[in-house]
Each structure stands twice: as structure tokens, then as C-alpha cells.
């Protein structure tokens, strides 16, 4: 913490600037909310900025009544929950084994994992692999290939190594097997790191759309982000009709529907974000740990 003689004018200008910058991070979402909650004539006349005018819930009535949106939301929730559990299981088991000195071939496996930092995964061969494994056009293609990262394995391994060795030894004396130590001691003591890695993975899984774009052909298996992407990129009414039964009546404009759907898909993130921020920040710090 630098210690200067207090310089009020500088402080004030600095604070003011940062407050303004931080408001620009939030303002667009507020604008979306205002647009989606206004009456169409105000939106059409560009009179809505950050507060709804001619308050109307029509957009949300339509969204909540659109089964394809709910379905896509369901797919997203499914891949987020199952994908995260899968990632945690894979990460914690290999990280635990690698944290134990008794692990055979430990050095070689660690080297093999470090190397994956350096080589990026090539797109075309991965795509062909997923096809060969017949995972394409299934939700597994969205969850399995990205389940493990060298980074997460190292973070968790470091955490396990920081747990008290005496505890592990004592359990061993009492006849606990390595499997028992993993399940009954290592995992229960690791909730901070599990929460952090799990949350990061969950957010990534929820937000990504590229794998779904390349692997999923069946419309009913598309996660919400792909639906949104079609709405945003291909723009306009053409893709609106893709989300069937969206009724573009006098009660809303396409712009309002778009705003509403975007917010609808962001809602889960916005709801968990304030509560989980401290885990996220802690997680980003974990990244600075060096072996």
C-alpha cells in the first residue's frame, strides 16, 4: 500500500474515473433489461436507455412460453452439471494419485501432462477423433474432450500436497487404503479447491458454443448459447423463426425479443455471480502458483 500525503483531488478523480469505467461494464445489461421491459413504441422510437418506459412483461411472457428455449436451457444445465462433475472426478483422481510419492511412473506422467501445456490441440484431428469415437452429435462431445486440463490437475495436485501428511500417515496406520484416503480424507478436506475449479469449469461449459457448433447437428440437442448465436449472428427474423412459436406480434419488436432472450440466458450467471465472486477471485490467484 503506497503511503502518500493525502491528495484529495487525485483520489477523487481516480475514484470517479474507475466508477465510470466499472459502470460501463454493467450499463449494457441494464440497457438490455430496460429494452426488454418497455413498450414497443418507445423502443422503436429509441427512447429507452437505462430505465423501461411503458413497462410491459410481454417479452418474458413469450420467452417463458417458448418450449425450444426451455429445451436449450435444459441442455445447457445438463451439460454444465454433468460436465462439471465429470471434470471434477477426472481431475481429482489423477491429481490425488500424482500427489502421492508412492505413485508409480509419477515423474513420467507429470512430464507428459506438462507437455500438453506447450502443444495446443489441433482442431481438425480432434474433430476427426470425436467422430471416430462416435461421440459427435451427442452431448458427450461437449463434455468429455475438455474435461481435463493440465492447469487444473496441477492446481489440485498442489492443493493435495499441501494437506497434512501426518493425517494421511495416521489413516494408513489404521489400515485405510489409498482409495479410502482419497475418498474420506483428501476430498472432504479440499472443498475450496474443488469449488473453485468446479465453478470455473461450470462457467466455461455454460458459456462456450464452439464445440456445440461443430459437433451437434440435432436441433433438440443444441445448448442455449448456440441458439443465441444464431439469433445474434445471422440476425433478424430468419433466425427468429428458428426459435419456433416466437410470436412477433404488436406487443414486442425483434429487438426487444433479442434483448429478453439474451438476458434470459445470462440470468443463471448473474444470479450466482455475486455469491461466488470470492471463489472466482481466489481461483484466479491459484493460477499464479508455480511449481
Amino acid at each position, binding site marked *: 500500500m*503506497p503511503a*502518500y500525503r493525502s491528495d484529495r483531488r487525485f*483520489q477523487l478523480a*481516480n*475514484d470517479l474515473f*474507475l*466508477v465510470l469505467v*466499472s459502470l460501463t461494464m454493467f450499463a449494457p445489461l441494464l*440497457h438490455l433489461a430496460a429494452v426488454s421491459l418497455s413498450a414497443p413504441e418507445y423502443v422503436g422510437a*429509441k427512447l429507452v*436507455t437505462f430505465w423501461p418506459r411503458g413497462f410491459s412483461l410481454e417479452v418474458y411472457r413469450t420467452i417463458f412460453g417458448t418450449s425450444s428455449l426451455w429445451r436449450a436451457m435444459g441442455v445447457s444445465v445438463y451439460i454444465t452439471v454433468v460436465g462439471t462433475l465429470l471434470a471434477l*472426478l*477426472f481431475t481429482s*483422481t*489423477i*491429481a*490425488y*494419485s500424482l500427489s*502421492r510419492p*508412492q*505413485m*508409480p511412473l509419477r515423474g513420467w*506422467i507429470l512430464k507428459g501432462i506438462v507437455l*500438453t*501445456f*506447450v*502443444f*495446443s*490441440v*489441433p*482442431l*481438425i*484431428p*480432434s*474433430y*476427426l*477423433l470425436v467422430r471416430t469415437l462416435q461421440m459427435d452429435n451427442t452431448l458427450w462431445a461437449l463434455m468429455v*474432450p475438455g*474435461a*481435463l486440463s493440465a492447469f487444473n490437475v496441477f492446481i489440485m495436485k498442489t492443493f493435495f500436497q499441501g494437506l497434512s501428511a501426518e493425517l494421511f500417515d495416521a489413516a494408513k496406520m489404521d489400515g485405510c*487404503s*489409498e*482409495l479410502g484416503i482419497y475418498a474420506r480424507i483428501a476430498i472432504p478436506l479440499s472443498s475450496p479447491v474443488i469449488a473453485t475449479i468446479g465453478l470455473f469449469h461450470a*462457467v466455461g461449459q455454460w*458459456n*462456450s*458454443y464452439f464445440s456445440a*457448433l*461443430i459437433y451437434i447437428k440435432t436441433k433438440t440437442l443444441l445448448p442455449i*448459447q448456440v441458439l443465441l*448465436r444464431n439469433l*445474434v449472428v445471422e440476425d433478424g427474423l430468419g433466425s427468429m423463426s428458428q426459435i419456433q412459436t416466437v410470436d412477433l406480434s404488436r406487443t414486442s419488436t425483434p429487438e426487444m425479443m433479442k434483448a429478453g432472450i*439474451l438476458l434470459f*440466458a445470462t440470468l443463471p*450467471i448473474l444470479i450466482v*455471480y455475486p455469491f461466488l*465472486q470470492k471463489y472466482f477471485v481466489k481461483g484466479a*490467484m491459484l*493460477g*499464479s502458483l508455480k511449481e
Partner: protein
Amino acid sequence: MLKKLSQRDAALLLLLALPGILHFLVFRYIPLGGNVIAFQKYNLFKGFLESPWVGLDNFRQMFAYREFYQILRNTLLLSLYSILFGFPAPLVLALMLNEMRRMWLKRSVQTLLYLPHFLSWVIVGGIFVNMLTTEGFLNTVFGWFGIDRKDYMTDPAYFRTILVSTGIWKEVGWGTILYLAALAGINPNLYEAAMVDGAGRWRQMWSITLPSLLPAIVVLFLLRVGNVLDANVEQVLVFQNPLVREVGEVIDTYVYRIGLLGAQFSLTTAIGMFKSGIGLVLIVGLNAFSKRTTGESIY
């Protein structure tokens, strides 16, 4: 008995690690081996065992394409601009945050600053695409200053500006976290001593703060430069449209469009190999350079 027990432990540990080991082998190493199709004329129905070998033909073809130099240039320019403007941004922001004295305000500001990092590129795209069209909010604001309305999304001249700015908007707050952690670790005695010696705010920043942050800066910079040929596909694909493709097409999106959608598997795998080859050389080279000059390295 003890020996037997430790053997059982070793077996259990291996078993426990097996899913993870297999995952790395299958999804990280097999695709690397799959790069061999860059030396084939790969045919989806024949598979890589039956497809004919063509030596370096795909690489020759790649370098013969005029289009290849175009996308290489696009990729490099996009990266260089985003390094030039995007790399210092979180550093400056972190230094400013560090000067805040009202802790409650600092915490609220940080909460808002981190938020966009958690929004998907689709959402961010949806927000900004809307803002940048002829009818959009940006044009309304510019209109107050007498600037004519135009569609920024379809004008190639603005593509890179849009990508770099939205990239900064989304990640600048999050990027401060590592710097803030490093800032919190600086010994306050250094500042007090400097103040006794009559050093002001700028002098302290120049002589204490920045040198303390140097390790973090160097490591982050190396990682960033190593990825100079990687674009954020999810970001580019949201902002790209046919009208801006001459500047908007980068290696990663080209591989997706021509390779996956156009089924030109071998040629685009060759391009992908070229890209990772450059990345590898850069990261190893820069790391060695940095180790010698600054003493900092990533591995």
C-alpha cells in the same frame, strides 16, 4: 506384509489415475498424432490408414495460396493490436485500483469490473452488435456530436477496432487480479522509506511498484506473445460477417470454415501445424531470451 501393502497401494493409485491418464492420451496426444493427415490427401471414408500419402504437397499448396498470406496478415494484425492496447490495459487499471482508499467503493468497483469476464461471447456479441448497427446506441450518441449514422458492423475498417475494444471490455477487469495480488505483496516499508527520501507518487510507482510487478508482467507477456497466431474463435465468429471477411478471416476461423465446413481436412491441418509450430518456436525462444535478460521464465 508391508511390501505387499505398498504394492496394493501402488496398484490402487494407478487405477485411480487411469481415467485421467487415458484422457490425456486420447484427447491430447492422439490428435497430435492425427496431424499426420497434413501429409496425406485425407478422405473421410478411407480414414487415415487408407488415405494416400502426398508428402509436403499440402504445405506447398498452402504457401502458394494468395489467400493464405491474407489470413496470416489478418491474424497477426489482430493479435498485434490486441497486444498493443489490450496488454497494458489491465496493468494500468490495476495501478489505478491500487490507489483507491475507499475500500467499500473499491470492492464494488471490482465486482462490476469482473462481471463481463463471466458473460459468454455470444451475449457480449449480442450487446455490441446491437449497439454498432446503423440504428444502434453508438450512432445515437455520435449523432449528438453531429457524426453521421453508419453501420460499423459491416465496414471492414472498423473490424479490428471492434474486436480489440470488446476484448478489452470483457477481460480488462479480470486481468487486474494477478497484478493486484502482486501489488498486495509489495513490502509497505519500501514506500515509507521512499517517502522519507522525498519520492512522490510517480517516482514511487516508477521505482518501486513497476519493478515489483515486472515478474508478473514478463510471464503474462510471454504467454500472450506465444499465442500470437491464436485468435479467440468464439469472439471472432460472433463479430465476423461476409462483408468484413477480407479483414476478419483469421487462421482459426479459416480452418473452421474451409476445413470443417468445406471438408478440406488435410490442407487446413497443415495450416494448423504451421500455426502451432510458430507458436512453439516463439514460446521456447522468448522464454530463453527472457531467462537470460530478466531472469524470469514460464518454465
